[in-house]
């Protein structure tokens, strides 16, 4: 066993892996936020609550229906996306002509309702959710012990993020989406149904949050407050990265997760605040964000 700067390598790489996993969640959530913001001009404050709901639906499916992890990975995002579509159609769609701040306030209210309901029903203590048996155990890599599930989370989220990026940058659908982000009126005039595209984007964005929630369920315990603290960090990630580029938010998410993991090893007191500190520095040096375009 060797050490790095006096830290046992296993501990260092363990924390880095955990950082990478956190980064995966930051990336998936900020990607969804950026997609939604691009088309709806709304910052979805309920993103954290919907992530929590994803985890909870997985737990509920297992507890009451007996449906396992793989079913949950498909069903939970569908359920959450359906809720998202209802939210978009019945509420958010009334706000597009107003100041963007109203969207933030509305989704903040929704987050309070969702979190309050789950806390009322299931209390604040966490519910354990075990790792699926296919992904249980781990590999000894020599320099560290790699739990298979954690590796799976990083790979799954990478695939999802890159897939989303590819769809948006390389396909015709993505081209419509980018065009509608630039100028929805013109795209509508070309005969593309923009309102449907907006609804679908919102649904997809929150489905990403729900998948992140299901992936998170075996890593952290499932509890009603798991989303609210996360979403504030993700906001900082979004400010740091800027919402102008899909790849930008993914890269920023992973990097900041790693940085947080490193901080946990070398200066644990600052682990909770390091991302906010980075945000301050970025605001001082490059106010528009690392990948941002304008304010």
């Amino acid at each position: 066993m060797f050490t790095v700067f006096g830290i046992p390598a296993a501990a260092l790489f363990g924390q880095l892996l955990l950082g990478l996993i956190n980064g995966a969640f930051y990336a998936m959530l900020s990607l969804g936020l950026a997609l939604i913001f691009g088309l709806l001009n709304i910052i979805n404050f309920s993103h954290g609550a919907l992530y929590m709901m994803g985890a909870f639906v997985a737990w509920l499916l297992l507890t009451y229906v007996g449906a396992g992890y793989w079913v949950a990975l498909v069903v939970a995002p569908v359920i959450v996306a359906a809720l998202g579509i209802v939210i978009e159609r019945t509420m958010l769609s009334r706000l597009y002509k107003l100041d963007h701040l109203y969207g933030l306030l509305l989704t903040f209210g929704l987050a309070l309702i969702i979190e309050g309901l789950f806390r009322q029903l299931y209390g604040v203590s966490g519910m354990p959710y075990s790792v699926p048996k296919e992904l249980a155990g781990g590999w000894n890599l020599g320099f560290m012990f790699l739990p298979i599930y954690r590796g799976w989370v990083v790979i799954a989220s990478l695939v999802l993020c890159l897939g989303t990026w590819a769809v948006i940058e390389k396909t015709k659908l993505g081209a419509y989406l980018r065009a509608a982000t630039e100028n929805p009126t013109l795209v509508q005039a070309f005969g593309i149904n923009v309102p449907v595209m907006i609804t679908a984007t919102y649904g997809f964005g929150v489905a990403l949050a729900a998948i992140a929630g299901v992936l998170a369920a075996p890593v952290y315990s499932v509890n009603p407050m798991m989303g609210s603290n996360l979403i504030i960090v993700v906001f900082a990630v979004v400010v740091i990265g800027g919402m102008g580029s899909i790849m930008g938010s993914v890269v920023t998410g992973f990097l900041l997760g790693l940085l947080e993991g490193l901080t946990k090893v070398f200066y644990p007191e600052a682990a909770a605040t390091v991302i906010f500190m980075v945000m301050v520095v970025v605001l001082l040096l490059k106010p528009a964000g690392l990948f941002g375009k304008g304010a």
Partner: protein
Amino acid sequence: MAKHDVTLTAAAPPAKAPSRQTLFVLALLALGVAAPFGIYPVFLMKGLCFALFAAAFNLLLGYVGLLSFGHAMFFGWSAYVTAHAAKEWGLTPELAILAGVALSAVMGTVVGWLAIRRQGIYFAMITLALAQLMFFLAVQAPFTHGEDGIQGVPRGHLFGVLNLSDMMTMYYFVLAVFVVALLLLYRVVNSPFGQVLKAIRDNEPRAISLGYQVERYKLLAFVLSASLAGLAGSVKSLVFQLASLADVHWHASGEVVLMTLLGGVGTVFGPTVGAFLVVTIQNYFSEVGSWVTIIQGVIFVICVLAFRSGIVGVLAPWLKKRGIQA
């Protein structure tokens, strides 16, 4: 000075208006003086502290168009400093409050300076993130006593004379602080400075092109708002003799937004109405789990979808016909 006076008269309401307005304000004041004889004073003081907090927040959202989602950092940290100063350093209440407000003014300068680099939705996210940073610092700093908070804060003697342990004395002190702060805000909003703030809110590029140093105005408004939010927190820590993590949590930041939205953004009395309503809801439902949170969420949704001008905003046209600016 002369130039200022001219602008002031120009901005003032028609000659007949002030008398009605004065009567209305006096009636409200009389209500405030008489209230503790009919209603539990601690409840009233809580309401007044949050009303001041919301009024300070409203200066930014209502008159500059800036949504700060992190005002709890000023409220909570001033509460900590005042509580610490009164308990550990043995300062008199007025000095302890002054220390709390001074901290918020300094914090407001730094946070404001950082946050006004971005606009709109980013401004809200930055203030929220910075408030979360200050929340974690409060969790880690030893003097805040973590989950316990600073308990048993002595109210002491105001100016060494007035014993604030007496419930009625404390109430009238809180009322006096509230009234003075609200008058200050009213003065600011109706001053040439306030006119510029409204111009920035309505059309920032235009204000810039007219030669106003928009950033400076925004920063000054932010510092003022932060200081008054701090004042509210300081006074609150003396009323409840407690400063705790709940005051710095993002939940408190959300509550002050709700109070202002419910009462009426950009109105003089709206935040007060909203604050008393929200505090009443808290008192009624505090025993039944998470219902307070759920109800607050529902009110948020209703306000945004159907009731954007708030209670006072709805009443304002009716009051205006009777010569009262609400």
